[in-house]
């Protein structure tokens, strides 16, 4: 098997995913185009050598439809020989794109690929592509579909995770994100988003709320309680989990991932081609795995996916220096830490999506990059990145610095 190496990665800052967000006036094709341009230019890349461009996108319709990976490459003036495909594994799409790119290298079928993702959530709202999963009554019924926020509350209820637990975690996420920004830990990888005039539109994550306290969060009302009761979802949850007497609704906007706009790209290839093109390998992709989990709660995939990839790589939790688990909801991370016996100081050390936001199709590639930067900064060796995934899945990837 050929080794796949990470040469570089870039991401946009994350804009608030609302009509008043800074990136709302930037098209998703622009977000994708600008990260492709950035990763090309800073690596002096001859795009004729790019074998494939794989981008994750979770609402691939409208202006995000029609294979945004290929079209953004054309828009970024990549050589026409560089093809592109868009992949969808819900929230892990960005990591899936990286894995898919790496797989092409590892299988010997490609030498240089780009993996990344894009999501302009302010412009193409979550779930706007519909889907049989929740729209087709027979399917929604059969799979006991409930919206993810209620799944998160159900998960917290099942595992005795309290409102105070999730709020405390979130305060720390905000603190870490703010500190990482202020100390410049993201500077190397974040490329500002510019307008048609070349003027900067956004250069920092704008969802972040530095200085948030537990007392601030305590004032927020649980976001999914009313919907759970009035629209029947709590009843559906209990039909799937009849051991639960009542759902304890603990999640709200302050302890759930933020809705944001953003894009990311990573450059992956063989050692030989890297040498030829003057690209320095920063890390090796050791292995990756995806797995399915119970779809009603749908947020418990990270542990089995992590165990699966660790096993495949002949490693254990203690072999991993740092972890990144997407902060979809605070309870997801708390459960993972408990389940995998990982102390808080080894996971999400730069904060996460609760503070900075979760642009669905891009996040996986973004946090992979964050992990690599932090391993380098601390001069550590191995990292594991994982995400929980809609419809009950988990995806995980292990990298090792070289």
């Amino acid at each position, binding site marked *: 098997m050929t080794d796949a190496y990470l040469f570089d990665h870039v991401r946009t800052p994350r804009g608030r995913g609302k009509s008043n967000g800074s990136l709302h006036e930037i098209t998703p094709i622009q977000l994708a185009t600008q990260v492709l341009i950035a990763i090309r230019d800073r690596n002096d890349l001859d795009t004729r050598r790019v074998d494939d461009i794989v981008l994750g996108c979770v609402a691939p319709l409208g202006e995000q439809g029609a294979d945004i990976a290929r079209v953004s490459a054309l828009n970024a003036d990549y050589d026409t020989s560089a093809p592109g495909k868009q992949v969808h594994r819900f929230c892990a799409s960005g990591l899936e794109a990286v894995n898919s790119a790496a797989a092409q290298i590892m299988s010997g079928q490609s030498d240089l690929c780009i993996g990344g993702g894009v999501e302009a959530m302010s412009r193409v709202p979550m*779930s*706007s592509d*519909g*889907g049989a999963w*929740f*729209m*087709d*009554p*027979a399917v*929604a*019924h059969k799979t*006991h*579909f*409930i*919206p993810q926020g209620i799944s998160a509350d159900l998960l917290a209820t099942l595992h005795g995770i309290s409102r105070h637990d999730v709020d405390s975690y979130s305060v720390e996420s905000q603190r870490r994100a703010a500190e990482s920004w202020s100390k410049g830990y993201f500077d190397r990888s974040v490329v500002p988003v510019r307008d048609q005039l070349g003027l900067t539109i956004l250069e920092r994550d704008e969802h972040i709320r530095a200085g948030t306290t537990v007392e601030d969060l305590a004032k927020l009302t649980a976001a999914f309680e009313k919907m759970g009761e009035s*629209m*029947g*979802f709590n*009843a*559906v949850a*209990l*039909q799937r989990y*009849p*051991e*639960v*007497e*009542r759902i304890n609704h603990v999640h709200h906007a302050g302890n759930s991932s933020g809705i944001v706009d953003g894009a990311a790209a990573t450059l992956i290839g063989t050692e030989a081609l890297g040498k030829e093109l003057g690209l320095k390998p920063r890390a090796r992709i050791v292995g990756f795995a995806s797995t399915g989990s119970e779809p009603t709660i749908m947020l418990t995939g990270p542990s089995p996916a992590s165990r699966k990839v660790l096993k495949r790589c002949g490693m254990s939790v203690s072999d991993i220096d740092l972890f990144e688990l997407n902060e979809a909801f605070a309870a997801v991370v708390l459960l993972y830490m408990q389940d995998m016996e990982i102390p808080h100081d080894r996971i999400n050390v730069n904060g996460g999506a609760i503070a900075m936001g979760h642009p669905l199709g891009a996040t996986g590639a973004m946090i992979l990059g964050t992990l690599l930067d932090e391993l380098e900064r601390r001069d550590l060796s191995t990292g594991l990145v994982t995400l929980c995934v809609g419809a009950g899945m988990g995806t995980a990837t292990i990298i090792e610095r070289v």
Partner: protein
Amino acid sequence: MSKTLSYVIDKDGIATLTIDVPGKPMNVMDPAFNQDFAEATEALIGNDEVKGIIITSAKNDFMAGADLKWLLSELNSQKPAAEVFEQHYTVNRMLRRLETNGKAVVAAINGTALGGGLELCLACHYRVAARNAKTRLGLPEVNVGLLPGGGGTQKLPRLIGVKKALDLLTRGSHVSPEEALELGFVDELCEPEDLLAAARKWLLETGDPVQPWDKKGFRIPGGVGMEAPDHGNLFMAATALVAKSTKGNYPAPQAILSAVYEGTLVPIDAGLRIESRYFSTLIMHPVARNMVRTLFVNKQAADKLARRPKGVPKREVGKLGILGAGIMGAGVAYVSAAAGINTVLLDRSEDDAERGKAYSVKLTNAGIEKGRTTREKADRLLSHISTTADYSDLAGCDLVIEAVFEDRVIKANVTRQTEAMIPPDAVFASNTSTLPITGLATAFTRPDAFIGLHFFSPVDRMPLLEIILGEKTSDQTLAWALDYAQQIRKTPIVVRDSRGFYTSRVFATFTNEGMALLKDGVSPALIENAASQAGMAVGPLSVSDEVTIELIYKVDKAARADLGDDYGAPSAIDVTHEMVEEQGRLGRREGKGFYEYPQNGRKFLWPGLGNLYPIAAQQPSVEEVKNRILYIQALESARCLDEGVIMEPADADIGSILGWGFPTWTGGTLSLIETVGLTEFAAECDRMAKAYGPRFLPNEALRRMAAEGKTFYD
């Protein structure tokens, strides 16, 4: 000419087709009507003189849906799927033929049109309805476990939009002609006498023979699929709300959602095929059979006093006496006075009796407030109730119902005092829920005129009356008791004397099984959720709190004292001893039982239960808990049938649903056994007997029936 309809053609070429199904108060659809209708419409379509068609009814109402008695024979069909589909798709084909025949058709809706009746109207090109306060228009099929299979799930959304149609279809609700006009599935209203003229006018002046959905560029109001961004949330919530209300036990609302969802994304003909497919799945499903048989056909028979002995002249109660003005006595007084019966409410003091009458005052006041009754009607009702502490006021009573404390000595005492005052042909009834009638009858010198009338609380809301025959109760007494049931509009079932009779006896197995599950280490939340998912109105622990754990404990103590060597302790009765004697948790009335009842907030399971009955590490599946809860009740009913406590299976089924809220989808306790299959049910009970105790051992009669391939309703 055909029997169920006739038509005339006037000089303008307008044919008026009048439906008049013989021997029925309301027009109903059955194969004979369908054939007549198909033939008549073909004749009109093929007749060149005919320019347009009016469809109306000769009866007060337009048309109801299918004839339920005929329908019942089609339900739970074992025919091949292709045959079932073909049979029911025929109706869609016939109505489709009508609406695409090239001649305009108007429905002249003179009165109520429901189900198939309304679907016939939807297959017309124009609907004009008479203004009539009594007219109801709707598609209530969901209430009998079906979906509107004559195009209703396709044409209603195409007329009024998916959202409004889903609401009407999944709730099975009906509306007035004015509301139908507003919603958009009636085109015009007129005075009843102008109905045919209005229909004619439209045919002569407009007469468009093409349905909107057959016109080029047709778009469903509000859109569908990707052009209706709100449909994601609409179907998502509708599906969850259906799951919440059906617990997955009733396939019909789910099938309606699917028929509308899938059918509105394709052209009408494909939509109608999709509808017929889903309709066929429901026809073949036992739940529709169960619901139609018990809740409609058999309940209607019970309400018409199917169990009344023949040859006894009808006797309505003119004057009623009630002994004891407690909760039950007060409730019986209310329903009797509401039926216009002069009622004497007797208690130890005039004040006590007045307190019983106050219940009727409270109910009538609430009724006035909610607009359900008027001051005048309320006053008339209240004037029928007199209160007293004097037994001589019972003189002239046709029926006296005793509703005093459950104590033999007290009951015997009031019985004797009453007998001295009432006419020699008066019937004496006891409202006891636990004490055998034959024993109570010994205090009455005419035991043939003594009977049990077991009401359910709250009497004004619970529709069932369990009539208990003592050993010596005469046919005449039973007949008169049934006449009274009809007078007060309760659905009667007739059972023989036994401890707990039928309903209390079987209900006790439900609460006992809840406690047995607790003892087995099953998590209390799982017990309660499983019962709710099985379709019980409330969980066994919750209902035990409601009736009070103390009452269950006391009833058992009384049984123990009465029965001596014949007493067999219920398997989990020790739980009531623990709760009452050791924990002092008597039930909801005292604010603590299996649940905690915080002052301001929802009740929650008492956390201390986990210490008393530690939760086992290995929990059973929810299916297993559901089956334990349902099967023990079904099995006890089978025993009641075997012992002759139940004489007619329909009584067991009706009594279980109306009496203690056994799930409707099952069709009742005995229908559940039929639904599972007698052989499989007996085998499951044997397995459970091994796992949980001998209370699950099937009785021999059940095993025999299973072995012989019999069912209860053969």
